């Protein structure tokens, strides 16, 4: 950990630098702690519009000039809108790090949001909403998110047609003015760059950028809605999603939850792949995963299958989770630990992955965390701790979403009490 510096600058930016001498690229990530959760209720879709238009014109340059300036140094950059953050990522050759950061500072600090550009992007976002209807798995994710997290944390970044119709250029500008500032910035950098140089550049580039007061760290409350939900859609397959509350990333049982998911879906020897696909041939795709907004943890299982097999698939998914408490074996647990540890090791060769990992550590835990500490927690998980976890966090309140030609049969649903 001696190669990592984590601190807060006078301008308000919290930053982390992983010094990796010998690497040939630099990656950095700017997380503005402002995502869809901060949108006004009647302006859903605003955060994504902001992230898509912020680099489309500044006080000094047009959007095209900004794009050309990035290309002039060959920097690969992009942005994304999440529930709690808006992220700008960049990978560049070390010689161009300073210029890349300068360009980010320019569009983050002095965007002009040209009206004609904003109008086009509102229309494009409406078209993306229509396109979403043609993407079965993404549509199922959207439906699932709404039920899993409720009306704030469960918002979809695209918003909806009615809310997009309400949004103006002024809304985007005002939202930027209110929520984009140095005090909400978390910046991580990985590569052959001296931490002192990064600190100096950040301070110089963002001094005076809005409020320097540390903010945006408060978690948003989820509103889990257990129940059975079905949306009819003319599809070849039925999309099945199941979720239930777990623990957040900082909880002491989080490592146990990670291992549980590894046992379920960590590789092809995981229980879901083995039982649902390999033994019964019910699906091509099946998976289990978790999402951890701050202070919230949610576990998911998903599969897609032909409609006449969805009841059996659903029952098998649920049975496999429950069966873990009964017959988990040490070898399964060991494989799950090895899978997660090896993932950390192999991705460690990627500068971009190291940068993202550092950003996650600081975002969730407020500090960098060594691989040794992470792996130590995973290795401390036992069969008993998994049984305790399954007992402490029962699957007695499930949210089940199906999308496709038919709802689950009553008989399948009765296998579980839903709420």
């Amino acid at each position, binding site marked *: 950990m001696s190669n990592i510096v984590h601190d807060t600058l006078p301008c308000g930016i919290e930053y982390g630098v992983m010094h990796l001498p010998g690497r040939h690229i630099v990656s950095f990530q700017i997380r503005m702690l402002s995502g869809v959760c901060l949108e006004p209720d009647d302006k859903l879709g605003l955060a994504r519009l902001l992230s898509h238009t912020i680099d489309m014109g500044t006080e000094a340059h047009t959007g095209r000039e900004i794009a050309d300036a990035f*290309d002039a140094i060959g920097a690969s950059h992009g942005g994304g809108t999440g529930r709690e953050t808006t992220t700008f990522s960049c990978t560049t050759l070390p010689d161009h790090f300073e210029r890349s950061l300068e360009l980010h500072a320019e569009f983050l600090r002095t965007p002009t949001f040209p009206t004609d550009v904003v109008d086009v992007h509102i229309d494009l976002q409406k078209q993306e909403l229509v396109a979403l209807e*043609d993407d079965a798995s993404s549509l199922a994710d959207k439906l699932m998110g709404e039920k899993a997290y409720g009306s704030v944390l469960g918002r979809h970044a695209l918003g909806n047609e009615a809310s997009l119709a309400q949004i103006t250029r002024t809304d985007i500008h005002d939202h930027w003015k209110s929520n984009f500032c140095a005090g909400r910035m978390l910046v991580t950098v990985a590569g052959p760059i001296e931490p002192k140089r990064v600190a100096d550049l950040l301070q110089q580039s963002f001094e005076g950028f809005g409020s320097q007061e540390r903010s945006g760290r408060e978690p948003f409350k989820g509103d889990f809605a257990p129940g059975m939900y079905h949306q009819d859609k003319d599809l070849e397959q039925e999309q099945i999603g199941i979720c239930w509350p777990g623990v957040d990333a900082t909880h002491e049982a989080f490592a146990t939850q990670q291992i549980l998911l590894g046992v379920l879906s960590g590789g092809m020897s995981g229980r879901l792949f083995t039982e649902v696909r390999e033994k019964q*041939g019910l699906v091509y795709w099946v998976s289990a995963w978790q999402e951890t907004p701050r202070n919230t943890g949610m576990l998911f299982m998903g599969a*897609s299958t032909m409609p006449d097999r969805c009841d059996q698939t659903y029952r098998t998914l649920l049975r496999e989770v429950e069966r873990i408490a009964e017959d988990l074996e040490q070898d399964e647990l060991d494989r799950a630990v090895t*899978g997660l540890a090896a993932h950390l090791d*192999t991705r460690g060769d*990627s500068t971009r992955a190291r940068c993202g990992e550092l950003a996650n550590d600081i975002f969730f835990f407020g500090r960098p965390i060594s691989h040794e500490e992470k792996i130590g927690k995973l290795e401390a998980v036992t069969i008993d701790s998994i049984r305790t976890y399954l007992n402490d966090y029962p699957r007695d309140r499930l949210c089940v979403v199906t999308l496709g030609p038919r709802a689950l049969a009553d008989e399948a649903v009765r296998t579980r009490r839903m709420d």
Partner: protein
Amino acid sequence: MNSPYTQHTLPNGLRVVIETMPDVRSAAAGFLVRTGARDETRDLAGVSHFLEHMMFKGTPNRTWRDITIDFDRMGSTYNAFTSEDCTVYYGWVRQSDIEKQIALLADMMRSEIPEEEFGKERKVILEEIAMAKDSLEHLAFDFIQDKLFAGHPLAWPILGYEDTVADMSRDALWQYFQRRYAPDNMILIVAGNVDPNHIIDVADKLCGGWAASGTDSQRQPPTMKTGTDVFTLDRFNQQIIALSFPSVSSRDELCETAGVAASILGGDNSRFFWNIVQEGIAPRVGAHCMDYTDFGVMILYGSCQPEGIPALYDAIKEQADKITRDGVKPEEVERVKNKRRTGLAVEAETPYHRLTQLMDDMEQYGEPRTVDQRLAEVDAVTVDSIANYFEAYPINIGGHLASVGPSQWPNTEGEPGGNGVSTA
């Protein structure tokens, strides 16, 4: 600079290609089998992909369960995929596990194709085909291939057809496997912080006893069709259009030029981006070169709601005409080159990404290419070479138009060049 590559061919014809990466902690290995959808007959469409699934199903030494457990005991990031040209199996592990990883992959390459697993896997593949039918992009791509290369094996979908998969016998699969999965039709590729001599010893020990088959691909380049084909699919909301034009093969000296031209036209910060997306005509539009060893296609594509398609079509045509007639500017070429340089530096970091690129190099060029070689190819692209490319392969005349979605646009009934309307 010393080459980072070591190449060796075992007496049975198996090529071994190793890239030594002294600064990394992980390693990746994979077998590239030179067989894919274009080696199939129509009645066995999907056999390469079916075989890819069955290779995980058991060997004389391991059951399917043993195979998955052994992968996961290493914490490997592993998978397989089938393309038109090849089938690939790979794993990415910690450096200390690379020998075990190679051993497992090598064992899989001698599969027993167990009869008892065959029926179950058929159901899984039929689910995969059903999943693909819920994707407009997937349906559109298969339709384009079907029409562009009608009558040629490249027209078959990689997954196969429902009827060919449903009717496929284990014996047919076994025969195909025996012919195609011979060492003289395969390449073992390894990248990472490894000792190349040791890897060659390992390969010899594991694979040296495999019998060569003398198999050879009887591949012929297709004749690309022209005209217009429409596929109406009422259950989707968006329409996809694609204009396809003949292009160069991956082994042509203008291949890199074609790639740069496609980026200028349809990549990030491209002509399509500023003149189509940012004009609000369509949210998704791009240009892409499909390179094969013996021919190539440049595809210009986009999607939007059906009512916007005529405007999207006109806009794509306008840009295609402009770049063919007027060429490109030096700064446009330079921008793409700069991005490629950064991309190459990113790719050089991890054994997994190097393995992926080496697979591509071996399939397309028959040799690994160093970063310096690839940079030199990028640097050789100029305004003039792009002009030469478009002179030889214009994208403002001829070509093929495919339209897929709820609209029957364009209505080609009775018009010359209108090949027909398909429905689903």
